[in-house]
């Protein structure tokens, strides 16, 4: 059962992780992957020039590792991969990649859904975005609590 959890301070290309992760699990039935990027361009995201993700080294990576273990225990997986950026990112850059490999698709899809809800709402990241040259902290959202509550 493979677990691969990383914090990256530099830009990454999702393809560099998805292929090797898939190949590491011969006999699998399916791989589900979610890649989140810095959103831009429309509505409340218009005018975003950059996003910064801050973390706290003694807690952020250990928290992600515990989340991966929880997903492995909860779903019928062959492996899970969680990659998360830190630092300053521009619109269109990948922030997060979660892949789950399983013999059957349901476990893989649900594990990705579960991990994303918890990464977004329950992990030790603080974000700020730059608009008009000024940084603004992003506050928690009510929706995040609803997302977590889905998992009981």
């Amino acid at each position: 059962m493979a677990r691969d959890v990383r914090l990256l301070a530099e830009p990454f290309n999702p393809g560099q992780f998805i292929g090797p992760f898939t190949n590491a699990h011969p006999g699998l039935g399916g791989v589900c992957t979610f890649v989140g990027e810095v959103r831009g361009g429309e509505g409340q995201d218009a005018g975003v020039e950059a996003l910064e993700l801050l973390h706290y080294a003694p807690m952020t990576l250990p928290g992600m590792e515990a989340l991966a273990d929880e997903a492995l225990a909860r779903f019928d997986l062959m492996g899970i991969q969680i990659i998360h950026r830190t630092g300053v990112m521009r619109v269109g850059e990948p922030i997060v990649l979660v892949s789950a490999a399983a013999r059957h698709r349901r476990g893989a899809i649900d594990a990705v859904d579960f991990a994303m809800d918890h990464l977004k709402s329950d992990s030790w990241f603080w974000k700020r975005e730059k608009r008009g040259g000024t940084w603004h902290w992003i506050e928690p959202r009510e929706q995040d609590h609803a997302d977590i509550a889905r998992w009981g």
Partner: protein
Amino acid sequence: MSRGVRIVFLGKLADLAGEEAREVDAPLDWQGLLDALPGPLGEAARGERTRIAVNGALLADKAALQAGEGDEVALLPPVSGG
């Protein structure tokens, strides 16, 4: 190197503090922390949405804070939303 207690400010608390961390004398308990953080920083520390960790371990009860020489006390505001 100092062997006091290092207080680390995360997220917007670092803006409030004007620095990412500061050293205070050991030992440090809850009252000592509040004394070391006057004004809005102390208010933030008291706020129920601010968590405190010692050496990476969350405190269930902030008032039970007991940090000694070389310990790192982190003030953790709520994480940002998705």
